[in-house]
């Protein structure tokens, strides 16, 4: 017994034991990332954020917990590994699930009104606004007010100006 104990007290053994503890603690610490390859993962997330989860009410493929979503994310990863472009991957899914799966509608004649509509509307509205302002600029002020009413108006305007 005593000789075993003496063995452990030898400096070299102690140092070895200490090193093993340290190494062990350094090794086991960091949690393993779920993604095998962060580059592929980043690209997969970027693509699937713009895709719809077909079994959900309205969630993206990237964030859905549904099983089909997980399967499709895996499918996207494997397509990325095959060096397919983003467009090819989207085409892969559209052939199987239809346009409905894209959250960003492709710009084609059917969606021109959608993509260009707001800006056309803005142009029309701005033009109308400018025409209106031009018209008001040219207009002479019309008042059929009495002096008392004019004085009241002055007072109200002053109060307004202070706001």
């Amino acid at each position, binding site marked *: 017994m005593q000789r075993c104990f003496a063995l452990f007290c030898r400096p070299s053994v102690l140092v070895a034991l200490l090193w093993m503890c340290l190494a062990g603690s350094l090794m086991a610490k960091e*949690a393993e990332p779920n993604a095998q390859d962060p580059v592929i993962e980043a690209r997969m997330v970027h693509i699937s954020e713009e895709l719809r989860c077909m079994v959900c009410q309205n969630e993206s493929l990237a964030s859905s917990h549904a099983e089909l979503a997980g399967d499709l994310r895996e499918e996207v990863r494997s397509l990325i590994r095959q060096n397919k472009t983003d467009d090819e991957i989207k085409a892969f899914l559209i052939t199987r699930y239809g346009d409905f799966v894209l959250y960003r509608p492709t710009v084609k004649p059917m969606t021109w009104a959608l993509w260009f509509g707001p800006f056309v509307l803005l142009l029309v509205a701005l033009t109308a606004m400018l025409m209106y302002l031009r018209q008001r600029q040219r207009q002479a002020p019309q008042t059929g007010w009495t002096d008392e009413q004019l004085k009241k108006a002055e007072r109200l305007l002053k109060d307004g100006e202070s706001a």
Partner: protein
Amino acid sequence: MIPELGHYVLILAFWIALAQGVLPLAGATKGHLAWQSMAKPLTALHFGLVLLAFLALMWSFVINDFSVLYVSQHSNSLLPTVYRMAAVWGGHEGSLLLWAFLLALWSIAVAIFSRTLPLAMSARVLGVLGLISTGFLAFILTTSNPFDRLLPAAVDGRDLNPLLQDVGLIIHPPMLYMGYVGFSVAFSFAIAALLSGRLDAAWARWSRPWTLVAWVFMTFGIGLGSWWAYSELGWGGWWFWDPVENASLMPWLFGTALIHALMATEMRGGFKAWTVLLAIGAFSLSLLGTFLVRSGVLTSVHAFATDPRRGVFVLIFLVVVVGSSLTLFAWRAPKVSVGGRMGLISRESFLLANSVLLVVATGAVLLGTLYPLIIDALNMGKLSVGAPYFNAVFVPLLSPLLFLMVPGVAASWKEAQISQLVSRLRWVALGALVLACGVPALLQELGQGEWLWSTSLGLFLSAWIVLGSVKHAIVRSRQPGRIALSYWGMQTAHLGMAVLVVGITMVKGYELERDVRIGIGETVTLRDFTLELKRMEDVDGPNYKALRATLEVKKDQRIVAQLTPEKRRYFSTAMPMTEAAIDSGLFRDLYASLGDPVEPHPQTRAPRWNLHVYDKPFISWLWAGVLLMVLGGVIAALDKRYRRAASPANPV
């Protein structure tokens, strides 16, 4: 007994609301003073009856009366009492009753606070509110009765959806509905003005505080919804451009345009017809939102259980209300007298630009939300329009609006000089530009993230607003004359908008996430934080069992926080639910979401679980921005000129 009483009282309320609608309006047209003065008492009676019905439903929930069908669908005996009460508005029928109740509440508030209004005016306003209430009560009584019985009674209820069992459900719908319904007051004022032919600055002064308060509730309600989605849904998102979210954003955008346009009408008598149209539009969008959410025409996570009959009723209601008000508008608005002169560059023209940009933005959101429906109706197929579209279109529309906030405030009424504005604001512009480029460049140097042009745009606009507002406030306070509360309200709200934009810009530009499989004792690093999984334990909740992870967060070797995300299994549903843990800070939130167990560690065979952690910088600035906007609106509404008795003899 109580449910039957509630039902009966609701039927009575329908008839009283009808009287409240018809009598005062007829009285105002015919000059019948007696009928006009019936408006306020009828409103009070209407309110009392709807309140009783509402309390009857809440009572049924609290005592677990599962013989009421609605209660059995949305509650459970194990559900904590506070959620039992909130479950009243957890489904379609009850939320409609909440709507009717809040409409009655706003109506009685108008009745109480309208002493300074001429009788005919208040009669018309309450009359229109009465007609709207009649429509909603009819909808409830014919298609969505919350008091329907389930016989034989259920042994226990189906439980409230676990996602709804959160403090968010208690406040978000009531606040949001206060906003939706509040715009009906502005609407009623607009209709009353069109009916009486009296559309003037005094009318704008009466309308504005009501519109402001409705806008405040709407802002708060939408902000709450975002915050709730963020804290409850488990992946840290806060806005999805979901159709139901868009349904609340559209009236808010119109409401914002309305409070600004009302200012021009109040001060300068300008834009009268436009303001009236905006008021009609804001409430119409509220009603449209109701239709979209309850009719089943759109796919959404929020949509209530749908029934085509309900969709038809709401559509008919929508056609009647909006159709008749727009017809009235087309008939009466041309007769309204034109306002004073306004220069091409003036505060009026800036306010007009504000209206134009907000209306176009609303149009864009409406287009995107309805496009799938339009394409389907034209038999051209099915497509989806989601966040990528809205983000691409909304940001370019809102950026000029944010930019114009500063010169708009600086410009004087009637006529302003561009050269003057430019010279006043050039240092502000320079300062904003320096911040917009300096901050992201510095952060990129420090390795915190890439410098994106969108980050610079957002920072420029918010710095521009903050610096511009501060400068204007300093200049203004040096000038003689009292500064009205509405000025400080405006500055606070604008500041809130800037803070919101900073939050959105920074979170989108710099958020970081890690998706790992973690075992006890293992760590995950997120920027300068280290999170270690200390233990996993089973926890019992009132109506669920949970697996709880305890994560210790360290920064520079010091413990700074503890996160306890859970995976819950509610007894009532088979679906497991994840309860995220958030450590909120001024400059960042740490967000942890626990996933399912995965295969053990290959070497040690220790058990592991999926864990998703996020670093979200500046996200609390989103909530702070919303709160500042709310505060600004409240301050502005308290301005003395709204409380001062307006003497009846001075229509301007």
